[in-house]
């Protein structure tokens, strides 16, 4: 059992690159090609909505990989990762709100619509700078990163771990949800930020813009993949796993557990923020429900379904769960929760290593057979 997961912790280089290239070809070449080159009535044609949908899943996949870095490898089950995702989303959303300019319903160039009709007189200071894309792009990483750093520093320094850590992270995202709900906060309350028109001058309602965002997301996922692989294959990756197994023992070896966790947590939060920033222009809305504790739990569930502590698992999990959700909410709108619930139960019972484990298990069985 353990040795199986192990194969995936340090995948043979050849296997890794093969998988990586296959995914790259699929998402970077095949999907766009099938969308752009094939006629709409072809059986293999990938319709526009599908491209957007896959783009959304890709964002979830990045988020899941970020989650996996802290949870799968470092054993820190954050139930607040949705917060970092949402903050990244809000940062880019603020930029897109600002770039609406005077095209809002009230034609007010200085204030977003939601501020106008709730009588705000001027833009709050924390909106300053979001007129500029690069500032916003920086904030996409800086805000989740800084929050994770401060929060993590406090928590890990105090040696909050296990469920205690999970619950305080949940409290964090819950508090943020309530805070962003408040209209006084100046982030559009429950409705959040909507009515985006364009990003960097590209019209968001254009299919070409959507395709561009899709491709960008794919590239970022690829980069995330490489980054996570680099980190987890390093000695630090092994220290992270050691922390997961026996945190206090790691300290007696002279490693700073706080430092290791803080590194993983902050890096993960930054990745989550980037995922959120790619997500928001594609779905067209960001609101406080993204902070809801249930959302964060779901992220953990994608990772678990795919296979915790493996490189590919989170991506598989994010696609499988969200794909199932998309399909079932349309195909069986009244019964889909049964199917999804059953999926979660079955995966846990039958595939303790997640979907990746299924694959590895099959391989192992084949090898075993051929050895016999």
């Amino acid at each position: 059992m353990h040795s199986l997961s192990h194969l995936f912790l340090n995948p043979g280089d050849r296997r890794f690159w093969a998988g990586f290239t296959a995914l790259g070809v699929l998402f970077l070449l095949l999907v766009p090609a099938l969308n752009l080159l094939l006629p709409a009535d072809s059986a293999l044609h990938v319709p526009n909505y599908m491209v957007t949908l896959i783009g959304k899943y890709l964002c979830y996949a990045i988020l899941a990989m970020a989650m996996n870095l802290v949870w799968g490898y470092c054993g820190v089950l954050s139930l607040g990762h949705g917060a970092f995702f949402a903050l990244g989303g809000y940062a880019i959303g603020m930029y897109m709100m600002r770039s609406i300019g005077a095209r809002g319903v009230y034609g007010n160039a200085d204030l977003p619509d939601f501020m106008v009709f709730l009588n705000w007189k001027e833009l709050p200071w924390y909106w300053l700078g979001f007129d500029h894309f690069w500032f916003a792009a920086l904030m996409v990483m800086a805000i989740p990163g800084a929050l994770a750093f401060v929060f993590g520093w406090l928590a890990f320094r105090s040696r909050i771990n296990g469920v205690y850590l999970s619950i305080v992270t949940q409290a964090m995202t819950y508090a943020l949800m309530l805070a962003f709900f408040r209209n006084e906060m100046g982030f559009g309350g429950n409705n959040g930020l909507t009515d985006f028109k364009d990003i960097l001058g590209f019209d968001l309602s254009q299919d070409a813009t959507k395709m561009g965002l899709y491709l960008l997301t794919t590239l970022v996922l690829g980069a995330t993949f490489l980054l996570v692989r680099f980190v987890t294959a390093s000695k630090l990756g092994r220290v992270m796993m050691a922390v997961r197994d026996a945190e206090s023992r790691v300290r007696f070896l002279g490693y700073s557990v706080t430092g290791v966790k803080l590194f993983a947590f902050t890096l993960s939060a930054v990745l989550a923020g980037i995922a959120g920033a790619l997500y928001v222009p594609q779905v067209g809305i960001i609101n406080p429900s993204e902070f809801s504790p249930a959302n964060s739990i779901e992220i953990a569930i994608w990772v678990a379904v795919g296979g915790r502590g493996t490189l590919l698992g989170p991506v598989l999990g994010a696609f499988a769960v969200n794909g199932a959700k998309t399909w079932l909410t349309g195909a069986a709108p009244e019964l889909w929760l049964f199917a999804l619930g059953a999926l979660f139960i079955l995966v846990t019972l039958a595939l303790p290593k997640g979907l990746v484990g299924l694959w590895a298990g099959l391989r192992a069985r084949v090898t075993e057979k051929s050895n016999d």
Partner: protein
Amino acid sequence: MTDDTLMDQPHGPGIAAPGTILYVDSVTVSFDGFRALNELSLVIEPGELRTIIGPNGAGKTTMMDVITGKTRPDQGDVLFDGHVDLTKMTEDQIANLGIGRKFQKPTVFEHLTVFENLELALKCKRDTLSTLLFRLSGEQQHRIDQVLGTVGLKDKPRMLAGALSHGQKQWLEIGMLLMQDQRLLLLDEPVAGMTDAETEATAELILDLHKDPHHSLVVVEHDMEFVRALGARVTVLHEGSVLAEGSLDAVQANAKVVEVYLGR
């Protein structure tokens, strides 16, 4: 963090014990009113090998907990290298000073391989960034192989440590201690669960380590033959304080030690 920066850290007012590697002065630890250590004092000199014996519950493990930063003493001073106050430092800072420990109950990283367990213990920079960028050198690889041989796990480097038997875990822990190459080594019952032959091998290993004056060792054991094989000065703890100290023969002759510990 390098050793130098830590060495320069300020310590308690005016406390210094030059010429000692470990200086424990009237340390008291109590748990809900129970005194596990009772004004314990103990001095280890650089390069010294010391064995510690004493009844179950005498406070031997607790003493090691205090030295390695796991337990904070209620009172008393613990100085390393004559001047570094250990009572205010965290476990990892203390480890980085040069203090290594083998636990009474073997604790290894169960989901890492034997090799990786040793690799993590390898002496090198421990800060997060260096760890991220770490590459195993040929020399280090060689060192790990060497230790694998020493602890009898040469044919199991790829095995997950969790699958080792109890005794094998003991050996792996010893191996990890060797990898760290620390100045002060604390060994809590290193031969528990070993066969007589292995016990002898361990004794040799320890004596070997002791040859290098860079190492100071504190060994806790209940196996008198092993203690004899080490031939070192013996300290007897009882109810949290030192009951007797001297050569093994002297200690064994002490009536009180016989009564509370050795039995008739």
